[in-house]
């Protein structure tokens, strides 16, 4: 309509309810004065003092007045909203009034209890109530929304953390897709000899879990697969998975190895940390599950263009499938668990340890394989020459706790070095062991016991370095000289036959891509950030995406299992089949008429809740992901983002009301 001014809003009917909170408030402030003052406030049509508003009697009064006086807004002057806002919102609901039309003035914690002078406390209470009464006018009736969601879950990584989570979810009768990039499950733990602290044999402890997994119909195992793309949000993720061909019928193969013996090609065996060789068609290691062969197209002659069919000819059940192709599939899931594990710090980046130059220097994982009955030496601890080592050095903090590489402690190295001592003494009772450390970290009951047991063993020397870097390895008379500096800064050389390094644990090489794909943050060392380090440790910064095991920080196998099960618990309790997901009512909202599409709001949202509609050229808040913090509203240079229940209007009205105090007035 040309040149007409916008119409004024119609007046509200505000009810102010004063709670005496027993003696708490009633004795500390002058409620009569306050009531009289409240009467004078604009648009206030009823003021009622109640001895105890949160008691049933009190709630009845509130409910009755709402309908009797046709109240359109409610101010409750009582305790902290954190204590009873939900209580009174419920009363509004019962009175068929929108619960968000309530504002509480906290005159107990903020007046009665903290201002002894009754006069002053009363004045303060008036000020807070006036502010509440002026703010509540700007409240909008909010309707909590909810959405459909899929209860299915994607678990990335079939290590011990992922497997524990998958099993817990499956027991909860959930469909689980378990994606694993390698041809077998179990991750690194499965290739350990013994497990700390019980020092039981790893496969005895783990294989029952693995078997259960392989036979659980709820769990769909996708080996040789990786996540290609993730779209959507909590409750409604769409995930694309790329699966590499195995060229062997996984289901049918019984792992008889007939095909392997005839394969003419040899390649380094990554599953033994490259300490020995495997064929182009192979089973990663004895006992690897599923017990089925796999062809590595990078080595297989057929895939280099030669016409070799030896393995197919050898297979008693003709299960070789040269013509199998890579496949892609799309999954709908409600939540995602990242259990992508860790990688060891690449020791070649720290030349002082001579790793790669001196053959008898090993990493911890290499040593695990050396010590493992299914490893390259069938568990025999021997040098590359075949002799068994007489003097063995164990070196802690390789790349940890140093400004040069990782400043953090990798948490488990000291403990597994204790395990290594146990391996060595078990297999080579005559050997001398030198443990180089700076500050041993052996938390918990078992680790300490084992530690002190060994420290009293005269075959084992605990040598303290001044700092993690105060050590270097050299060749000397065909042996390994470990040169280190002690606490008194004296330098010593210790001659050994073999040195085993405990490299720092860092996020798996794939972590950055995964983080980008999932839109989550990373921390020091590339580990996935937690939603909250203390109260939300297994959820990431993106709702519906969880992280367990060493993907989130270095930790023990026991912790990985616990976190896997914890994540599963979070998912089971938040994604219940058939139940719609409730959304944050106090979320942000973009006014399309005002949004310029500058997209700077996204700089402020760690939840990736703001998307951009390039068609319209405006931003859009995804109410599923929005947590209602209001950062974007304060950031938006157009003020096109409206923070529900904490609108500019509401807060500005509080400001004007609070600043015009009695002190100021006179």
């Amino acid at each position, binding site marked *: 309509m040309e040149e007409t001014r916008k119409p004024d809003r119609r007046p509200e009917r505000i009810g102010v309810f004063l709670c005496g909170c027993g003696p708490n408030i009633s004795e500390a402030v002058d409620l009569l004065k306050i009531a009289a003052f409240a009467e004078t406030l604009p648009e206030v049509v009823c003021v009622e003092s109640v001895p105890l508003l949160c008691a049933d009697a009190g709630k009845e009064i509130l409910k009755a007045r709402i309908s009797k006086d046709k109240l359109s807004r409610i101010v409750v002057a009582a305790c902290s909203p954190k204590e009873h806002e939900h209580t009174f919102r419920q009363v509004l609901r019962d009175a068929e009034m929108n619960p968000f039309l309530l504002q509480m003035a906290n005159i107990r914690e903020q007046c009665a209890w903290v201002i002894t002078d009754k006069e002053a406390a009363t004045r303060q209470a008036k000020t807070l109530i006036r502010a509440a009464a002026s703010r509540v006018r700007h409240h909008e009736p909010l309707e909590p929304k909810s959405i459909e969601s899929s209860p299915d879950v994607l678990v990335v990584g079939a290590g011990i953390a992922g497997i524990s989570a998958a099993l817990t979810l499956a027991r909860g009768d959930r469909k689980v897709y378990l994606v694993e990039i390698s041809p077998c499950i179990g991750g690194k733990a499965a290739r350990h000899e013994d497990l700390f602290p019980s020092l039981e044999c790893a496969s005895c402890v783990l294989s029952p879990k693995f078997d259960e997994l392989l036979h659980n119909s709820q769990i769909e195992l996708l080996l040789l697969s990786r996540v290609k793309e993730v779209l959507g949000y909590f409750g409604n993720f769409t995930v694309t998975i790329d699966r590499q061909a195995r060229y062997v019928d996984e289901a049918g193969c019984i792992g008889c190895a007939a095909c392997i013996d005839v394969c003419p090609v040899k390649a380094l065996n990554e599953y033994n940390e490259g300490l020995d060789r495997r064929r182009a068609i192979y089973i990663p290691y004895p006992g690897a599950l599923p017990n089925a062969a796999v062809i590595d197209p990078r080595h297989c002659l057929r895939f280099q263009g030669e016409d070799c069919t030896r393995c197919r000819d050898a297979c008693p059940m003709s299960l070789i499938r040269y013509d199998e192709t890579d496949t892609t599939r799309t999954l709908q899931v409600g939540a995602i668990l990242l259990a992508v594990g860790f990688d060891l710090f690449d020791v070649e980046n720290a030349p002082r340890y001579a790793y790669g130059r001196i053959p008898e220097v090993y990493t911890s994982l290499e040593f695990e394989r050396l010590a493992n009955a299914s490893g390259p030496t069938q568990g025999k601890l021997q040098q590359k020459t075949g002799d068994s080592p007489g003097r063995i050095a164990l070196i802690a903090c390789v790349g940890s706790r140093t400004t040069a590489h990782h400043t953090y402690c990798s948490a488990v190295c000291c403990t597994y070095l204790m395990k290594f001592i146990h391996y060595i003494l078990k297999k080579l009772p005559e050997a001398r062991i030198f443990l180089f450390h700076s500050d041993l970290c052996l938390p918990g009951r078992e680790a300490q016991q084992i530690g002190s047991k060994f420290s009293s063993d005269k075959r084992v020397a605990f040598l303290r370095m001044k700092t993690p870097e105060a050590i270097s390895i050299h060749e000397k008379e065909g042996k390994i000289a470990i040169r280190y500096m002690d606490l008194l800064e004296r330098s010593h050389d210790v001659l050994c036959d073999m040195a085993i390094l405990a490299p720092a644990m860092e996020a798996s090489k794939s972590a950055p891509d995964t983080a980008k794909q999932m839109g989550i943050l990373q921390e020091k060392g590339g580990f996935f950030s937690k939603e909250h380090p203390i109260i939300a440790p297994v959820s990431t910064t993106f709702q519906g995406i969880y992280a367990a095991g060493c993907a989130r920080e270095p930790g023990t196998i026991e912790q990985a299992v616990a976190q896997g099960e914890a994540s599963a618990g979070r998912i089971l309790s938040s994604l219940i089949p058939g139940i719609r997901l409730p959304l944050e009512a106090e979320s942000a909202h973009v006014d399309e008429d005002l949004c310029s599409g500058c997209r700077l709001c996204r700089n402020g949202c760690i939840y990736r809740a703001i998307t951009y509609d390039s068609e319209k050229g405006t931003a859009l808040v995804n109410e599923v992901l929005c947590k209602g913090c209001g950062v974007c509203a304060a950031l938006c240079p157009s003020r096109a983002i409206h923070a529900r229940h904490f609108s500019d209007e509401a*807060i500005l009205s509080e400001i004007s009301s609070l600043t015009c105090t009695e002190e100021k007035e006179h």
Partner: protein
Amino acid sequence: MKSFEPVIIAFLCNWCSYEGADSAGRSRKELPPNVKPIRVMCSGRVDPEFVLESFQKGADGVLILGCHPGSCHYREGNIQTLRRYLLIQNMLPQLGIRRDRLMLDWVSSGESDKFAAILDRMTCRIKTVGPLPGPTGNLK
């Protein structure tokens, strides 16, 4: 003559500092009535315009209290606040307003003592620097 009673607006984040205020209440700390609290979900909701408007409307001081860095309920909201705060601090003197009329601090839900201490410190600081002058050019 009546002594100068400053008005100080305090923005409290819902998760840490407002809790801190409540626990100060529960432990019956004595707090200066000069401080007028406003609850926001996150200190990151505090629009610099709120700060300037508080001064314009007659506040002599403004307090912003949030979760400690690293323990923000929304992870980085308080860092956004810190960035804005330091930028406003660069601008206030240009607007002829003393830097120390605006203060940002971190209070966790347990720190009732710290909460009380901050309020006291701010109040006597503002009492010593006196009231914030209004605009001289009778601007509305």
